[in-house]
């Protein structure tokens, strides 16, 4: 089939206005939230219903054409990018909230529903969808499922996987499978859990049932400032060891604080602090949350906080959070380009790893700002740079690699919530041996034997081949 006839066939399914072929239109979809990867898709198609998704996928299966599912494109790993030999399947038109069942605290949504919209829709019932990535005003729940997205409040409430009950999935061949059940108990092995976080490699979720939780009746938000990054890291360990689980425990370093305070998102963070911690406690009982907040304040002060301020009202709380959630945007002030890194270390390793990251940045002459989910040990070192400066991208790449190696050496991993995508492929062999990578690839083949869905992501094929060639053959994994 020629490109022209493919486009005509796609237009026959979704309507001509929902198929994008002109280069400027396709260029729009050539990046996600990470500026270091650009891939221009061959064709962009925007189905408007589950049946259209099925028809498009069946057409592409018949033609053997690879495709990449994409939500709002806010990902930070290059995971939703397609090459010019692939079709980009954009799911933002599947944006209906199909059901909110307040009695059972369940919602059913299409994949293109923007994260925050679900909580807004559930609010009249006193419920919310708890996973809250910083991009929640733009990112879609389908994308959250693909990446197993986290967010500040995942410390207490868990990541996306902890909230997904059931999925309707369109596989690579266009067949439809139902995973999980409305109550969350799987029909057999936990394929829902396996699917969440598979970065689109296993198919397209067209219907997603999620758990809703009551909006907390009591909330306390504390802002603590520290004279040293290490002290703040040590305070995090002390809070965790107390047995009180905050809803969120976030850290920002001085560079990040100053970027926020210089921006329209200025939150009143102390500019001279080496680091600030934003700690939120919530629950159903006002008196319990207040008492726990007092305990945490004492712990923070005992562990070196210069000051601890409690948000006086909802407005101040919102302002404190706006600064945190828009910190990545505020960093746009520091330089033209920004690489948002993502790694996780054991919480007790935070002080040492933060110092190591600082040393790596200095050795490469780079500006690094840290804003991250400290309670989970989920680091986000952000490198600000000007990509037009010759050689600078290579330095950023090399520094990123050293930071990943430092996190792995500390017992950590290369991504906690952004996914592997394209960006972290090269690091996968640093944490998984050849057999484990080959096993992942073999699992992928159960869902997508030809590796046509989001090709070239998550599992580095060369690592499977070079490091485990004979075993790959035994696994039934064939060289492409």
């Amino acid at each position, binding site marked *: 089939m020629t490109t022209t006839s493919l486009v005509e066939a796609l237009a026959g399914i979704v309507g001509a206005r929902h198929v994008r072929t002109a280069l400027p239109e396709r260029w729009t979809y050539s990046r996600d939230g990470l500026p270091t990867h650009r891939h221009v898709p061959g064709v962009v198609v925007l189905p408007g219903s589950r049946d259209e998704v099925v028809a498009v996928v069946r057409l592409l299966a018949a033609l053997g054409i690879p495709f990449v599912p994409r939500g709002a494109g806010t990902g930070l790993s290059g995971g939703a990018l397609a090459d010019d030999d692939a079709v980009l399947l954009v799911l933002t038109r599947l944006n209906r909230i199909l059901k909110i069942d307040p*009695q*059972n*605290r369940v919602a059913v949504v299409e994949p293109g529903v923007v994260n925050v919209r679900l909580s807004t829709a559930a609010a009249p019932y006193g419920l919310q969808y708890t996973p809250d990535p910083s991009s929640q005003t733009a990112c879609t729940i389908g994308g959250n499922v693909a*990446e*197993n997205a*986290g967010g500040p409040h*995942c410390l207490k409430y*868990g990541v996306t996987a902890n909230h997904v009950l059931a999925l309707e999935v369109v596989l690579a061949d266009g*067949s439809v*499978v*139902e995973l999980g*059940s409305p*109550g969350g*108990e*799987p*029909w*057999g*092995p*936990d394929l829902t*859990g*396996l699917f969440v*976080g*598979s970065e689109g*490699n296993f198919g397209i979720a067209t219907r997603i049932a999620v758990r809703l939780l*009551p909006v907390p*009746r009591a909330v306390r938000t504390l802002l603590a400032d520290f004279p040293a990054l290490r002290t703040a890291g040590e305070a995090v360990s002390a809070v*965790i*060891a107390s*047995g*009180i*689980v905050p809803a969120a425990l976030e850290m920002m370093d001085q560079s990040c604080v100053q970027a926020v305070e210089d921006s329209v998102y200025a939150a009143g963070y102390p500019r001279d602090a080496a680091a600030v911690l934003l700690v939120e406690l919530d*629950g*159903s*009982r006002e*008196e*319990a949350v207040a*008492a*726990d907040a007092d305990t945490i304040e004492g712990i923070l002060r005992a562990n070196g906080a210069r000051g601890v301020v409690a948000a006086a009202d909802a407005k101040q709380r919102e302002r404190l959070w706006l600064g945190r959630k828009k910190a990545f945007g505020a960093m746009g002030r520091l330089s033209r380009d920004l690489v948002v890194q993502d790694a*996780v270390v*054991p*919480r007790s390793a935070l002080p040492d790893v933060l110092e190591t990251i600082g040393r790596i940045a200095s050795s490469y002459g780079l500006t690094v700002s840290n804003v991250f989910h400290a309670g989970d*040990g*989920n680091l986000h070192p952000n490198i600000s740079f000007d990509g037009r400066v010759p050689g600078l991208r290579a330095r950023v790449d090399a520094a990123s690699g050293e930071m990943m190696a430092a996190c792995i050496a500390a*017992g*950590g*991993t290369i*991504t*906690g*919530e952004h996914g*592997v995508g394209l960006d972290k492929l090269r690091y*996968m062999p640093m*944490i998984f041996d050849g*057999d*484990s990578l080959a*096993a*992942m690839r*073999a*699992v*992928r083949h159960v869902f997508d034997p030809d590796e046509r869905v989001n090709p070239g992501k998550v599992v580095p094929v060369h690592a499977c081949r070079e490091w485990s060639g004979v075993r790959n053959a035994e*696994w039934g994994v064939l060289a492409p």
Partner: protein
Amino acid sequence: MSLLDRVRALLGDDAVDVAATRDGVPRVAPASPDAVALLLGTARAEGWRVRIEGAASWLAADAPADLALTTRRLDKIPAIEPQDLSATAEAGIGCDLLRQQLADRGTWLALDPPGLAGRTLGSVVATATAGPLRQGFGSIRDHLLGVTFVTGDGRLVQSGGRVMKNVAGYDLTKLEAGSFGAFGVIVLVHLRLRAVPRADRTLALEGSREDLAQVTDDITAAGIQPAAHELLSPALARRERWTLAVRFAGSEALVSAEEAGLGAATGGRFTALRVDEARALWTHAAECFAARPVTFRIGGLPESSDELLDLLQHQVGDEWISASPGIGAIRWGGETTADRLRRLRRTLAGLEVPLTLERAPWPVRAAVGHFGAYREGVGPLVTGLRRTFDPGEAFVVAVEGTE
């Protein structure tokens, strides 16, 4: 060379339990993950059929096989990290020993699986058998940071890690949890821990099932967030009538406030149990299931809990039941037949409620299967995954029944 001689040559004399098993199947106890891999690689080459055992106190050690692979010697705890609230333990460690060692370091694994105290960690993970604490702390998978397992052809595969968040690669940990060993022998488990709660209190209320269902609604409506909220049948609770047991765990402030909230929402009808009474209640409720020949779990919507209990009462009786009405999960224990289980599974499937057979004598397991009544398209995926992880069909696991 006989099978046992081959095993002795591979793993040494002490890996073979000469006393063997009740059904005469030789029992092999590898002492390391590498030894498990060596054994299963050989099993694949020789065509041996292998059944997996832990302490054999939960799932009956009765599946027909050429050899029984027990994880009993994989009983080390390589790491407990109180500051990180994580631990790494081998799969054959008994839950009681693990719990004790964790407590000594001020940490707590918020799991209370059914069965005897010495059940192995691997058994709990492989069967995903969560207890009443699933209400407040989630199912088994929510406590796992990663696992290492050995496939049916002897490959060591690692998944996840030992940090709190991890999306590097596909989540094979979730696939392993609750797969009953169909995809591999779990040898090492990385666990998410909590600090030992400063306060841990249980309150109980006896009444008719209808009365307690109303109380449950009141608790939910009041926004009370218990660690456990369990409806226990009279036999299970060793009381005259059904018992609603509510457990709070956390800081003293939290537990006191929740207790007060419970009192306000239910008119002060609950009675606080002493520490020894609470321990006896929960322990007995857990251990009772190990004494029943058949145990299964079903998972519906919270609103349907009462209807599901009626259905169970009608089809298989309701003598041994532990239900978490706040989340729609029910565990049933007792005696029943394969035909009744099949019929019940079909009826429940019509209500979109899965039934997972947790334990039963082999003839019943083989006939009914741990799983069944798959939704559209699930069967071929499960078959494909089994072929991937156990290409020689070495593992004797009744994943699906014969119907």
